[in-house]
């Protein structure tokens, strides 16, 4: 038996083959070749494969998503066969006698640069199309599977950690679980795993090595174990756990359609955190009563230039409409710190968590902010959209945000574009300063939502990305819980509601504390909705105490 011990970051037991994530190699070296004809043939084959994949994608799209996106894939397919593009590749091969990969990369860069140099924002954005197609051809040349997983059956995906842009491209139907050699429980992969409700472990270390590719293993996302060749006793333990898991799931299914109310009649809004319009399916599956945090970063992380108003509008509208009148709280961009985007050209900072990030970027870069606000207000005509600003530390920031909103509303009025004038505005409570000035902040907004990950990091001076802080990073620290109470008291004093959209919201052991504090809303991963509902329905709010706030 081989036991690899890590840290559990998303509960559940699965059995499947280990599969190491294939990361495309972006450093392609120029190599002289003797047989140029052979390289040409490789390019032809890779181009054909690429265009076939794209036509297949287009067909799939036409059935599932409609004509618009299908045509985009067809256009990409035509790029593969474009005369000039092909000619540029062949010229490079003839002149330089180099490897196919290098020629394709160079030709792709040449055309991408041509688009990037154009004076029209839309055309500049097309350089991303060329890069996309070029990367696909390169992947096919190098035998790297699309979405990083070349397997017929679902796998336990192994990697050091995954970047946000990488997780976006994964074929999620192929993933049974995540086994990470590095990573942390607050990392993006952990959040993704919990959103999808699939088991994951991190910090598994160097013992999880690529030579284990394809081996059958058990992954336990609660205890953080990966086990190969288990003995009979271990197999039995896992089987029992899987059986329990199944029973638990049945129990949870019975919670669907039930109200989120305590035995003594206190209603709690149980909402979901999502990072992508596709996650709405998980929200609906788990009967979430709204969306308490829709992270808008996916729009920025997946692009090579600022996403257009139209593109953002379509994404927000899709979610707002799909939620059919239930509240959808969309957070304006929270780039910076651990989420870096090249085209923002942010300066390298010694201490990015305390640097120019989130609302600070927006207030410094009004055009980016205005574009997002316009998209948000336009989407408000299609559902119950609420706007939330992250990383607030001062009252003047909120006032500036509100002025920007008022300007956008005036623009839309003038253009006769429909939007909801009553769109709620809220802020994230995630800095100690926002706690101290909470009474004044509460006068400015319609709601508070506490980001417990950052609030813990800033309150305890513990870097949430650092993996070795262990017991010092304690989200149950009385200081954090007292901060929550101070914010809640300030909110209720001014008659506004307060929620929690951080990871802590799903921590069932703290539910009595939240009920005692008077938290009105808990926004959690879709997979946490039903367990939370079951717990709420067993609770008596009146008898809950503030004991956890004592040192």
């Amino acid at each position, binding site marked *: 038996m081989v036991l690899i011990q890590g840290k559990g970051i998303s509960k559940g037991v699965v059995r499947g083959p280990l599969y190491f994530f294939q990361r495309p190699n972006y450093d392609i070296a120029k190599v002289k070749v003797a047989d140029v004809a052979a390289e040409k043939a490789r390019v032809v084959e890779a181009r054909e494969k690429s265009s076939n994949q794209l036509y297949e994608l287009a067909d799939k799209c036409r059935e599932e998503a409609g004509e618009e996106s299908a045509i985009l894939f067809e256009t990409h397919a*035509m790029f593969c066969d474009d*005369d*000039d593009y092909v000619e540029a590749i062949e010229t490079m091969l003839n002149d330089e006698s180099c490897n196919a990969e290098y020629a394709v990369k160079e030709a792709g860069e040449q055309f991408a640069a041509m688009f990037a140099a154009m004076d029209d924002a839309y*055309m500049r954005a097309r350089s991303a199309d060329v890069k996309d197609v070029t990367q696909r051809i390169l992947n096919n040349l190098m035998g790297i599977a699309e979405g990083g997983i070349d397997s017929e059956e679902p796998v336990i995906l192994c990697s050091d950690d995954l970047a946000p842009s990488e997780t976006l491209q994964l074929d999620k139907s192929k993933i049974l679980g995540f086994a990470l050699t590095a990573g942390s429980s607050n990392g993006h992969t952990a959040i993704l795993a919990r959103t999808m409700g699939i088991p994951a472990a991190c910090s598994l270390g160097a013992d999880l090595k690529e030579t284990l590719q394809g081996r059958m293993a058990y992954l336990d996302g609660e205890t953080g174990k990966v086990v190969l060749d288990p003995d009979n006793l271990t197999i039995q333990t896992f089987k029992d756990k899987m059986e329990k898991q199944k029973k638990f799931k049945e129990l949870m299914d019975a919670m669907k359609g039930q109200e989120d109310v305590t035995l003594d009649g206190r209603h709690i809004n149980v909402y979901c955190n999502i990072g992508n319009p596709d996650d709405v399916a998980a929200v609906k599956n788990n009967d979430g009563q709204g969306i308490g945090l829709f992270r808008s970063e996916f729009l920025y992380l997946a692009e090579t230039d600022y996403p257009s108003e139209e593109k953002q509008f379509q994404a927000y509208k899709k979610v707002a409409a799909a939620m059919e009148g239930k509240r959808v709280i969309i957070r304006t961009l929270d780039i910076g710190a651990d989420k870096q985007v090249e085209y923002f050209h942010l300066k390298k900072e010694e201490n990015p968590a305390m640097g120019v990030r989130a609302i600070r970027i927006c207030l410094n870069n009004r055009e980016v902010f205005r574009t997002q606000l316009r998209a948000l207000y336009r989407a408000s005509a299609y559902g119950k959209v609420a706007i939330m600003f992250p990383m607030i530390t001062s009252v003047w920031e909120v006032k500036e945000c509100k002025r920007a909103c008022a300007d956008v509303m005036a623009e839309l009025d003038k253009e006769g574009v429909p939007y909801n004038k009553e769109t709620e505005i809220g802020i994230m409570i995630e800095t100690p300063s926002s706690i101290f000035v909470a009474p004044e902040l509460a006068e400015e907004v319609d709601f508070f939502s506490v980001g417990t990950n950052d609030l813990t990091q800033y309150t305890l001076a513990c870097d949430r990305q650092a993996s070795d802080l262990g017991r010092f990073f304690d989200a149950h620290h009385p200081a954090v819980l007292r901060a929550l109470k101070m914010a809640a008291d300030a909110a209720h004093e001014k008659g506004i509601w307060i929620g929690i959209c951080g990871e802590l919201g799903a921590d069932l052991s703290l539910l009595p504390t939240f009920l005692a504090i008077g938290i009105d809303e808990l926004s959690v991963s879709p997979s946490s909705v039903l367990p939370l509902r079951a717990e709420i329905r067993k609770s008596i709010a009146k008898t809950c105490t503030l004991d956890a706030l004592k040192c």
Partner: protein
Amino acid sequence: MLEFKCVINDELGIHARPAGQLAKEAKNFGETTISVTKGDKTVKASQLMKLMGLGVKKGDEVTVSAEGGDEAAAIDAMKAFFKNNFAAEI
């Protein structure tokens, strides 16, 4: 050779999606060379990247020409295509 001039009124000009369709349409007339000219630059309509590289925007005037093969059929098809896809005024 047959040709027509038109002003592109589509908000986005000749952009990726319709440019792809135009290139496809142009390839249907294998015998005929269909070209698009903006200013002093002329490209074949079947050359998708170069076509997009023209950077045709709303309000730009372009000349579309057809030479060889069934020129008349090709130019008619192009007229219809430009009207339907780029809100072109001919």
